């Protein structure tokens, strides 16, 4: 969530707090700020007026300008390469010494002509190209004619004097996808008063619009009819706010919808009322049809997708995208506004299936406040009245399924302190909760009741209240104390310590311990699978064929590691890996050993090629360590018609009786087929 700090400051007085201090406060209250950025930056800026513009004698694209910088700075000569530089243009000038995102502006001589500054594009002030029109990126910024020459507060004049906090909103706090709620949170953290305005418009008529829901997936649906609107450009403040929060300005109605959503967290949808067959908007989830969306693409609507219908025809893919058929366009004058609540999981299924994700679908998926639709519609109506010349406003019609949210909780001061390991006083706890809009009432001794604000969907139990307290007061208040637990011998179980011994034995015998992936290809899973003829698990949604099966043995993976090394000129290898294995019918601990090339550690001068007897020796050593005497096992020739092993050089050990916890089963395979 991108949050414009300038917008936040409209609702809470932050005093001298810097953007970094606000970000830090949020981060340590559990709302991580990933980045603080400035919309634009630059010092020594001033608005100038181009008085003269001549071609540079020694260049085909440079101009020599004489620019009036107002009474304070006078007239300067500037060499400029922009194609749109011309006499009479009001421009942004970075004077000598200006610090811009790209570096400092110095007095210079460009192809023999002195230049004292630079005329800037918004790109050069650090504005993201995606927020600019094409012509804005190709030349210097053209300011309106009424721009005041000599004005040094250029960023303020442009509305670019804003800092943007990029919040990482975690799954439990969808309420923070609302600037109002972020302002409330900042106010609580810094103990500052927060003023969220409320708006009303006067109802001038009763609407015929019927709203409703025939599906559990839509629990609330509110609507209002508005007549006499006029589509035009949005006001400057709104365009600036939207830009800061990463949304492009389209026109006043679309922008009002987005602006209200960014501030309140409630997505809105607007229908052109004249394009609907019938004055009704009903949510359903039983339609299967083709749907032509605003983006002019056709999507297949299936059963369980939420659609808003009028006369049983899909007019909107609820919470995801509206239909082209009833979209508001430049000619629209008569609209319905929708503020509804949809089931997040359903929206997620639809949005994932169709590959359609938007600011509004993301808000529904994470969860919206079901109890603010009237105030949100009123807010939008007010803006429509002010900035879209809305003339007539109906009453608000509403469908709301009965829901019983947890609206208050019984809490105990002692529980909170005991859970946190703190000694907060009742006053401290009460104060924090009140700042967060959790109002404490009915206090009696240790017990009290706390009301939960409607936008906090995440708070449902006493433990949640303890978190609210500690995240604002800070974990530095937690006494660090080791738990006084009953003395107990920890330690490894028999199976675990045997596994350790096996690994140490092999390691001390010079084998390198490897780690390989459990997911393998079909071929890999089936090859060398001679210990267990068991069935492997297959993934429903693998990333690639190479990682589609959950392996039942390590050997092939280990040989792949060997091959990886051989291809890198590491030719003499002693590798092993132990790993837990699961097949559809068993779970056990496995060991695989691969000896490749020559035994390089025994005698560097006289390298011996690895053979069956090296492996046999390791296995015998392993058995000795595990206390398995030679009389209890024997090596048998292993003849298999599998092509992986050399028929004459393979053996299989059979144990008369060998049981280890975790059904440890060491298996060694010798001499891969040449």
């Amino acid at each position, binding site marked *: 969530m991108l949050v414009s700090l300038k917008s936040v400051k409209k609702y809470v007085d932050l005093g001298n707090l810097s953007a970094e201090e606000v970000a830090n406060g949020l981060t340590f209250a559990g709302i991580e700020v990933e980045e603080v950025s400035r919309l634009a930056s630059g010092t020594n800026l001033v608005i100038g007026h181009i008085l003269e513009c001549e071609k540079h004698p020694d260049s085909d694209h440079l101009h020599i300008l004489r620019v009036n910088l107002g009474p304070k700075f006078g007239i300067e000569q500037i060499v400029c390469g922009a194609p749109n530089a011309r006499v009479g243009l009001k421009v942004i000038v970075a004077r000598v010494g200006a610090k811009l995102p790209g570096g400092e502006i110095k007095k210079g001589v460009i192809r023999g002509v002195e230049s004292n500054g630079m005329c800037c594009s918004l790109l050069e002030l650090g504005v993201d190209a995606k927020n600019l029109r094409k012509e804005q990126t190709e030349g210097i910024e053209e300011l309106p004619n009424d721009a005041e020459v000599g004005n040094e507060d250029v960023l303020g004049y442009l509305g670019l004097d804003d800092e943007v906090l990029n919040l990482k909103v975690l799954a439990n706090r969808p309420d923070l996808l609302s600037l109002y709620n972020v302002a409330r949170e900042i106010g609580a953290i810094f103990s500052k008063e927060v003023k969220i305005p409320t708006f009303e418009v006067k109802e001038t008529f009763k609407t015929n619009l019927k709203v409703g829901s025939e599906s559990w997936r839509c629990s609330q649906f509110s609507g209002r009819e508005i007549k006499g609107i006029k589509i035009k450009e949005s006001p400057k403040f709104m365009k600036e706010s939207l830009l800061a929060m990463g949304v492009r300005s389209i026109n006043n109605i679309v922008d009002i919808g987005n602006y209200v959503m960014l501030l309140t967290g409630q997505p809105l949808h607007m229908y052109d009322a004249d394009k609907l067959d019938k004055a009704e908007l009903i949510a359903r989830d039983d339609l299967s049809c083709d749907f032509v969306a605003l983006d002019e693409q056709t999507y297949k609507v299936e059963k369980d997708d939420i659609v808003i219908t009028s006369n049983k025809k899909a007019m909107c893919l609820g919470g995801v995208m509206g239909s082209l058929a009833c979209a508001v366009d430049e000619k629209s004058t008569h609209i319905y506004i929708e503020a509804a609540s949809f089931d997040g999981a359903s929206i997620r299924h639809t949005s994932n299936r169709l590959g359609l994700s938007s600011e509004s679908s993301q808000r529904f998926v994470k969860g919206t406040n079901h109890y603010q639709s009237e105030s949100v519609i009123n807010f939008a109506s007010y803006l429509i009245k002010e900035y879209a010349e809305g003339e007539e406003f109906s009453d608000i019609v509403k469908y709301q399924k009965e829901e019983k949210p947890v609206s208050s909780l019984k809490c105990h001061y002692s529980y909170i302190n005991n859970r946190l390991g703190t000694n907060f006083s009742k006053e401290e706890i009460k104060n924090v909760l009140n700042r967060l809009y959790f109002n404490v009432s009915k206090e009696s001794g240790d017990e009290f009741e706390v009301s939960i604000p409607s936008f906090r969907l995440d708070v449902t139990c006493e433990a949640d209240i303890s978190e609210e307290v500690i995240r604002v007061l800070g974990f530095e208040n937690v006494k660090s104390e080791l738990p006084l637990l009953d003395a107990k011998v920890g330690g490894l179980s028999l199976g675990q310590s045997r596994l350790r011994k096996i690994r140490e034995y092999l390691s001390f015998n010079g084998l*390198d311990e490897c780690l390989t992936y459990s997911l393998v290809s079909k071929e890999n899973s089936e090859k060398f699978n001679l210990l267990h003829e068991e069935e492997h698990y297959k993934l429903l949604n693998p990333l690639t064929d190479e990682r589609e099966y959950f392996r039942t043995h390590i050997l092939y993976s280990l040989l792949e590691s060997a091959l990886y090394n051989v291809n890198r000129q590491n030719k003499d290898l002693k590798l092993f890996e132990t790993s837990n294995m699961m097949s559809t019918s068993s779970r056990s601990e496995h060991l695989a050993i691969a000896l490749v090339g020559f035994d390089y550690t025994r005698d560097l001068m006289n390298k011996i090629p690895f053979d069956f007897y090296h492996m046999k020796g390791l296995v015998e050593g392993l058995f000795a360590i595990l206390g398995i005497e030679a009389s209890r096992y024997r090596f048998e020739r292993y003849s298999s018609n599998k092509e992986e092993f050399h028929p004459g050089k393979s053996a299989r050990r059979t144990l008369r009786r060998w049981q280890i916890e975790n059904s440890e089963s060491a298996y060694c395979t010798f001499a891969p087929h040449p």
Partner: protein
Amino acid sequence: MEEKKEKIKISEVYSEAMNDIKSVFGLDKLQELKVKYLAKKSIIMTLLSGLGALPPEERKEAGQELNQTRNNIAKLIEQKESELRKEELEKKLKKEEIDITLPSRNVDVGGVNPFYVVKDEITDIFLNMGFEVADGPEVETDLFNFELLNIPKDHPARDMQDTFYISENVLLRTHTSPVQAHTMQAAEGKPIRIICPGKTYRRDDDDATHSHQFAQIEGLVIDKNINIGHLKATLELFVKKMFGEKREIRLRPSYFPFTEPSVEVDITCANCNGKGCSMCKGTGYIEILGGGMVHPNVLKMNGYDPDVYSGFAFGIGIERVAILRYGIDDIRKFYQNDVRFLHQYKKKA
């Protein structure tokens, strides 16, 4: 005359023998002298056997003299022999001296994937604090991986994109936390103190910082009166053992569905000691693990009364710790097993 001749002969024999012995080289030559002077057919023995021909009074004296001489020669030979043997041995030793700088024939200790170095070390730290090692399956049910951890179906924290499914309700575990539920159910309401190292899987494309397979160490303590301070102290102890006495920790509020409150744990950056540098992006701290107080719903669902018992849980990324500690720049290196990489890390006894 006869007698005189005899006497001269004896002293001559003796001085000759002395010279011979003195100047002899080599044990085999000495052996020849032994034969010459002491064997049956030697001069002295011949003279001895001829004693019978002498008159009795002379016989005794001559016999004594001869025997004396013979003993003296024998002694000389013996002396010489031990001298020569010593010499020979020295010569042999000299000859057999070796170049001790040549490569050994001993077995070198194998290289260890740093993954295991870290995993074993973390495990040992907690074993020493009285923890036991629990274990759970990598192929899990939806119930254990999600539902029993307070992540019901369609919870926003559960994203289909991140999970490898085997069937609708069977999946590869996305964290080691299901072991919490398994352990609680098996412990049937008794106190718990476990860690669980294990492999986990998420549906991520592999690159330098993402891996579809990675490993965690889960920790869980359940008892009466457990609070966040206990979690803080336990992790402080762990961090100091693992990263050094100078490291401090900092708790930051966070969110996991199965803990409440939840925390992220940062440690002071080892590179700059908390002053801020490029490694810690100027913050002085590096995020190292997550944890929190076990959510009452999780206790309840797994057979504990949250009004009586409380607990803390934490999860540590094994590769993450190894990456921080050894400055490894690519998580894929753990799974490639290049032996030149493995040989940089050796097992310590």
